[in-house]
């Protein structure tokens, strides 16, 4: 008989040992999964790490994969910290990509560098607007934000597909005969290409830098301001927050808007940094929003941890795409993410509780 009892004090070493232990267990479980499905685990892992982090080219690809994950991870972390489960990062990213691309096309090459900030703002507005739908519904009708934000992901995917594949919208390229038969988005003007920082053979997208700056700003906001304090109180104890006179509704709206804006900037970064067009297939196939939830949960909603973990999961995802084939089934990366998440979730219990086996448990009861 296993008994689990609450720890009175959390030893320091546990906060490091448990996540590391969880990772080891996760790799153990993955080894079993791979063996059970007839793959060589050692070979698979070494190829994953090589393709994700093994060379400068691999690292550059990983930075590209990590950029959207950083935004969606922050999007989820910001909201989850208040126990506001915005899982609409996926749709909010599409909304940001739509408005971001729109701003880029509209400004053309006339305003020079102003295109970039304009796209960031447009992306943020798009994401925030979509996130405010579940936000308002939650604040004023206490509607479950998990389901409403998720449903809007599907709607968002349909809208972005509609704009390119089923209409002659502003975003669609209708200039040539082939473009009319094979629908694709308009190419963004040169001024809408975001700059790249380049040193020692590594290319850092502007979006990634912006994301890291955002992470620092969020950390300051949540740990050094009254706003952040109230968000944390509402998250940990909504009743205490109400008694203290905190305005929960306003916080819900503000946090949802912030969360959606971050995902929206991630969408604009997809346009400006990488795709240079509104690309429905690429955006909807990638599943950035859902990976962001994994990242936020693994990072325990800490913005700096989000940066680190989105880099690691970015590498995993990049390797997954690169290796995808007969001996490396798609979906493997999703399975790994899930297993890691399960193990870390399960491991968390060890920081809060101690596990005892029956005999020792009875003894402790006697002394208590």
């Amino acid at each position: 008989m296993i008994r689990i009892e609450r720890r009175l004090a959390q030893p320091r070493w546990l906060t490091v040992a448990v996540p590391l232990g969880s990772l080891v267990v996760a790799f153990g479980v993955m080894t079993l999964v791979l063996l059970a499905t007839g793959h060589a685990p050692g070979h698979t892992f070494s190829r994953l790490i090589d393709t994700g982090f093994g060379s400068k080219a691999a690292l550059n690809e990983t930075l590209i994969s990590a950029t959207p994950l950083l935004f969606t991870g922050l999007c989820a972390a910001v909201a989850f910290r208040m126990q506001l489960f915005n899982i609409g990062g996926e749709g909010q990213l599409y909304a940001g990509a739509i408005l971001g691309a729109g701003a880029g096309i509209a400004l053309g090459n006339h305003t020079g560098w102003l295109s970039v900030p304009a796209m960031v703002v447009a992306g943020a507005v798009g994401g925030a607007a979509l996130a405010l739908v579940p936000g308002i519904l939650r604040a004023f009708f206490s509607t479950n934000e998990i389901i409403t934000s998720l449903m809007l992901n599907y709607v968002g995917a349909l809208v972005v597909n509609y704009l390119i594949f089923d209409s002659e919208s502003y975003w669609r390229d209708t200039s040539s005969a082939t473009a009319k038969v094979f629908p694709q988005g308009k190419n963004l003007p040169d001024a809408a290409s975001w700059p790249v920082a380049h040193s020692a053979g590594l290319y850092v997208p502007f979006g990634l830098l912006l994301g890291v700056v955002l992470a620092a700003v969020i950390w300051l906001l949540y740990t050094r301001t009254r706003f952040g304090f109230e968000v944390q109180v509402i998250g940990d104890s909504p009743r205490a927050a109400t008694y203290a006179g905190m305005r929960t509704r306003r916080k819900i709206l503000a946090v949802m808007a912030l969360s959606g804006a971050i995902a929206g900037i991630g969408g604009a970064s997809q346009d400006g940094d990488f795709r240079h067009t509104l690309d429905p297939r690429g955006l909807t196939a990638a599943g950035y929003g859902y990976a962001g939830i994994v990242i936020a949960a693994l990072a325990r909603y800490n913005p700096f941890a989000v940066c680190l973990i989105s880099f690691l999961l970015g590498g995993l995802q990049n390797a997954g795409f690169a290796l995808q084939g007969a001996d490396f089934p798609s979906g493997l990366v999703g399975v790994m993410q899930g297993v890691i998440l399960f193990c870390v979730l399960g491991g968390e219990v060890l920081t809060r509780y101690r596990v005892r086996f029956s005999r020792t448990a009875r003894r402790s009861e006697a002394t208590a």
Partner: protein
Amino acid sequence: MTLLAAGGINDSILVVVLASAVAYGTPLLYAALGELLAERSGVLNLGVEGMMLVGAVMGFWAVQRTDSLLLAIVVAAIAGGAMALIHAFLVVTLRANQIVSGLALTIFAGAAGLSSYLGNDLNVAGQPAKHSFGPFLPHSWQNAKVIGPILLAHSELVFASWVCVALVAVYLGRTRLGLNLRAVGESPAAADAMGINVVGYRYAHTIVGGAFAGVGGATFTLSITPQWVDGITGGAGWIAIALVIFAFWRPTLCLVGAYFFGAFSGIPFTFQARGILSGVPPELFQSLPYVMTVIVLVLVSSAGARRRLGAPAALGTPYVREER
């Protein structure tokens, strides 16, 4: 567009939409019944979409391998139950956050996770199903006016789902076990004091809930569109979770709700096939089930507090005997 077309009442748009409502509502119904059982025990499982997809791919694999539809359903149920077991272990034994664990299950098992991995690894994508469930009653019955297409021209899975609704309703309202279950969901401490095994009930109903979700997923791959495609359920698992809320945690209302959403899921196909409103972009119809879910959810949640509607009082909270 007329409500009564020349081909008789069975070809009228209303009858066709209602018939498709039953067909497309069936996976929602199975998944919602399963989620209802889990939630009645106090376990919120947001992994329905993932459990449905794993059930869908494993059920499809089983029918390709064994040629037995019955076995395929059993395999789908076991696969769904196995997924639910992970969630049960995490939230009941390890007391992890139910929302995060459920989301993790959806990511682990979902469209870009285990279900896709299995689909690729078992090499079942892109094949037509060797066998599938279809209407089996005598043709004269199936062609009966109005009730034929709506109620009778369906597969065994539809009829079985009605039996399940009745069984769950009787179980919850009329049996000792069902009443114990409700006690566990409403007040685990009181149930524990009565000598009910809270942990056992939560495990059992979460796993059975997963089995229902697995069967619901298999309804897609064995009946509605008999093939395997990544993410074939297209959000049905999430609609099922919302459905439990609309149904006020009552099995009979799940039936009504499932067909309501089934109708919206079927409308894009019906309208497209008949060229109705062909000028309207198809995405508008395709977004209907999702938009309707949001709208109905708002109506239900603004009608009053969830508790008054019948949400189990202990939903989402772990039970720790030492900390009550």
